[in-house]
C-alpha cells in the first residue's frame, strides 16, 4: 500500500540530512561506477581476444587429399587421391544435415598483373559457400555466385590488399586482372578480419580453374563448416565418420594417415579458445563480485552509522508511539531509495565513461568496452538488496532498543 505520509517522512529525513544521504549515496554510486567500468574493460579484453583469434569460422574443417602411404585392396602405395566434383556432391548427400557450408578449394600461386602493377598471389578456386567459411566480408561488388560456377566464368573476387597493391587508388570492380595470360573480371573486393595474409588471396570459381588449368574436374581440398549446433565432441565424431567414409570410397586403408586427412586443428584451437574464454569468464565475475562486495561493505558501514546517529530520534519516535515496524520501514525505505537513485547515477556515469573513452583504449587491447545492461541492472538490484539487508539489521536492532536507552544517549 502506498503511504504518502511515510514517504513524506522519508523525503524530509533525506532532505534535511543531506550530508548523510550524500555520503551513503556516493559510496553506492562509486561502487556501481567501478563495477561498470571494470566489467566493461574486462568485456573489452574479451572482445579483442575474439577478434584476434577468430580468422575463419570456428566450425570450419578442411579435408585434404594426398598420396597413400599403405597398400590396400591390392592397390599400390604412393597413389594420389583425386577427389572430384561428384565427391563434393557425395559429402553433401551423406552429411547434409551436419554440413552448414561446403566448398572446393584448389590453391596455387600465380603471377598477377594489372597494367604496370605486378605481384605474386594465391588463387583459390572455390564455391560460393566459401565466403561464409572464410568469413570474408564483401566491401564492394559481390562474391563468386552459383551462376559463375555453373558457367565457369572468368571472374574473380580479390582481397582488400590486392586491390590496394595492384589498383592503387582506383576501384577494382569491373576491371580485368591478368592471371598468367588469362583475363579475369573483378566482380568483388572483400576484407577479412583474419589478417593481411588472408586479404592477399584471389578467389575464382573452382570450375573455371578446373577448365583453364587442369582440364579435369579435380577439386583439390574440401573445406566445410559443420552445423554450429554440434558440440566439439560431436564434431570430432562427425570428422571421424567422414574420414572413414571417404577412405572407403577411395580405397584407402583405414589406418592410412596421408591419403585422406581432416585437419581438426581448428577444433583443438576452438577448445583452447573456449578454455581461455572460460578463464576470462571466471575472471570477470570475480572482478564484478569483488567490486560489489566492496560496495556492500561500504553501504553496511554507512547504514550502521546512520542508525547509530538516529538512535535518539528513534527513541523519541518510539516514546511518541511509533511501532517497531514503522521504525524499520522508515530507515529501510530511506536506504533503498538512496541506493536505487545513486546506484542509477553511478551506472550512468560508468556507462558514460566507457562510451567516452571506449575507442581510445584499443591500443591497450580493449575493444568496444561495454556492459550488458541486464548485468548492470542486476548489480544495482544486488546493491539495493544489500543496502536493505545492511540497513535492516541495525534498523531492526534500533527498533528494539528501549526508548529510554535511546533517549539517554542524547
Amino acid at each position, binding site marked *: 500500500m502506498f503511504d504518502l505520509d511515510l514517504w513524506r*517522512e522519508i523525503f524530509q529525513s533525506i532532505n*534535511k540530512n543531506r550530508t548523510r544521504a550524500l555520503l551513503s549515496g556516493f559510496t553506492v554510486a562509486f561502487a556501481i561506477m567501478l563495477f561498470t567500468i571494470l566489467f566493461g574493460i574486462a568485456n573489452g579484453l574479451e572482445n579483442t581476444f575474439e577478434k584476434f583469434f577468430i580468422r575463419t569460422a570456428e566450425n570450419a574443417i578442411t579435408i585434404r587429399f594426398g598420396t597413400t602411404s599403405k597398400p590396400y585392396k591390392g592397390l599400390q602405395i604412393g597413389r594420389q587421391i583425386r577427389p572430384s566434383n561428384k565427391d563434393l556432391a557425395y559429402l553433401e548427400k551423406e552429411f547434409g544435415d551436419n554440413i552448414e557450408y561446403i566448398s572446393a578449394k584448389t590453391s596455387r600461386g600465380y603471377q598477377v598483373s594489372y597494367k604496370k602493377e605486378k605481384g605474386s598471389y594465391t588463387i583459390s578456386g572455390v564455391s560460393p559457400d566459401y565466403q561464409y567459411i572464410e568469413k570474408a566480408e564483401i566491401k564492394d561488388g559481390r562474391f563468386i555466385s552459383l551462376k559463375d560456377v555453373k558457367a565457369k566464368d572468368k571472374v574473380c573476387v580479390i582481397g582488400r590488399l590486392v586491390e590496394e597493391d595492384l589498383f592503387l587508388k582506383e576501384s577494382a570492380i569491373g576491371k580485368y586482372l591478368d592471371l598468367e595470360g588469362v583475363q579475369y573480371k573483378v566482380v568483388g573486393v572483400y576484407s577479412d578480419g583474419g589478417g593481411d595474409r588472408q586479404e592477399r588471396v584471389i578467389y575464382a570459381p573452382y570450375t573455371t580453374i578446373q577448365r583453364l588449368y587442369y582440364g579435369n574436374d579435380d577439386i583439390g581440398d574440401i573445406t566445410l563448416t559443420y552445423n554450429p549446433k554440434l558440440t566439439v565432441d560431436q564434431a570430432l565424431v562427425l570428422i571421424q565418420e567422414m574420414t572413414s567414409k571417404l577412405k572407403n570410397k577411395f580405397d584407402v586403408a583405414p589406418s592410412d594417415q596421408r591419403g585422406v586427412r581432416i585437419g581438426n586443428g581448428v577444433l583443438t584451437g576452438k577448445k583452447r579458445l573456449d578454455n581461455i574464454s572460460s578463464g576470462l569468464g571466471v575472471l570477470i565475475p570475480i572482478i564484478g563480485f569483488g567490486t560489489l562486495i566492496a560496495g556492500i561493505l561500504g553501504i553496511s558501514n554507512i547504514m550502521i552509522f546512520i542508525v547509530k546517529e538516529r538512535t535518539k530520534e528513534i527513541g523519541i519516535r518510539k516514546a511518541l508511539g511509533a*511501532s517497531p515496524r514503522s521504525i524499520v520501514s522508515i530507515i529501510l525505505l530511506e536506504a533503498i531509495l538512496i541506493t536505487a537513485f545513486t546506484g542509477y547515477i553511478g551506472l550512468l556515469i560508468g556507462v558514460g565513461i566507457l562510451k567516452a573513452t571506449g575507442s581510445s583504449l584499443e591500443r591497450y587491447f580493449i575493444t568496444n568496452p561495454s556492459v550488458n545492461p541486464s548485468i548492470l541492472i542486476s548489480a544495482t538490484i544486488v546493491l539495493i538488496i544489500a543496502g536493505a539487508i545492511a540497513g535492516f539489521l541495525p534498523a531492526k536492532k534500533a527498533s528494539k532498543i528501549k526508548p529510554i536507552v535511546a533517549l539517554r544517549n542524547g
Partner: protein
Amino acid sequence: MLKIHQLHKSYPIGDSSLHVLKGIDLNVEDGEMVAIMGSSGSGKSTLLNIIGMLDEADEGEYILDDLPIKDLTEKKAAVYRNKFLGFIFQSFNLINYKNALENVALPLYYQGMKRKERQELAMFHLEKVGLTDWAHHLPKELSGGQNQRVAIARALAANPKLLLADEPTGALDTKTSYEIMEFIQQLNDEGKTILMVTHEEDIANMCKRIVRLRDGVIMEDKKVTQVRAEQYV
C-alpha cells in the same frame, strides 16, 4: 487513574544486579499533580520510565486507567504510549530536523491522523503554548523555554490521560522554569493528571503532592499546598 503495587526493578551490573525499586506502592487519582523527588540513584527516574512504559518492571502490578500494563509487546506498548501518555523530557527531545509544527504533529502521525487534520490540531496546541509565530522554526532556532513549550504542546497533542515530565525544568534557568511550571499548573487546573520527577524543592512545591524516594522505597508521601508559579513570574 494509576495504581502501582509492590513494584520491583533491578538492573544487572556485571555479575551482580542493582535493586533500584524495592516494592513501590503508589496510587494517583485523576487530576492530581504529583512530584516524585529523591536524590540521584533513588529510583525516581526508573519509576517514571516504568509508568511511561519506556521500561518494564520485573515484578509487581501496574494498572493504568483500569488497564493492566504487563508483558506488553513492543507494538502494544507503542499504541498505549501514543494513546495514554504524553512525555516532557529534561532535554526536550525534539527531532532536530523538524520544525515546531512538525514535532507537535508527530504523535498524531503515529495515531494515523490525516496530514491536514494533524497540522490543524498541532497548530491549535502551539497556539495554546503561545508559539504560533514560531511554528515553522527549527528547534535550534528556539530558546530552551520555547523548545520546552513545543515539547509540552507535543505531549498534549495526542490528548493523553497522563502527562509525564522528567525534570522538565532541569535545563532551564529559574525564570523560564517558573514560566514552564505556570503552564503545567494551568494544564493541571484544566484537569490533566501530571506526574513529574524533579530534585528541586521549589518546583516540587508547585505540585499538589510530593512523593519522596530513597534507595528504592517511598520514604514520604504527602499532600502539599500548591505554590502558584505565577507569583514568581
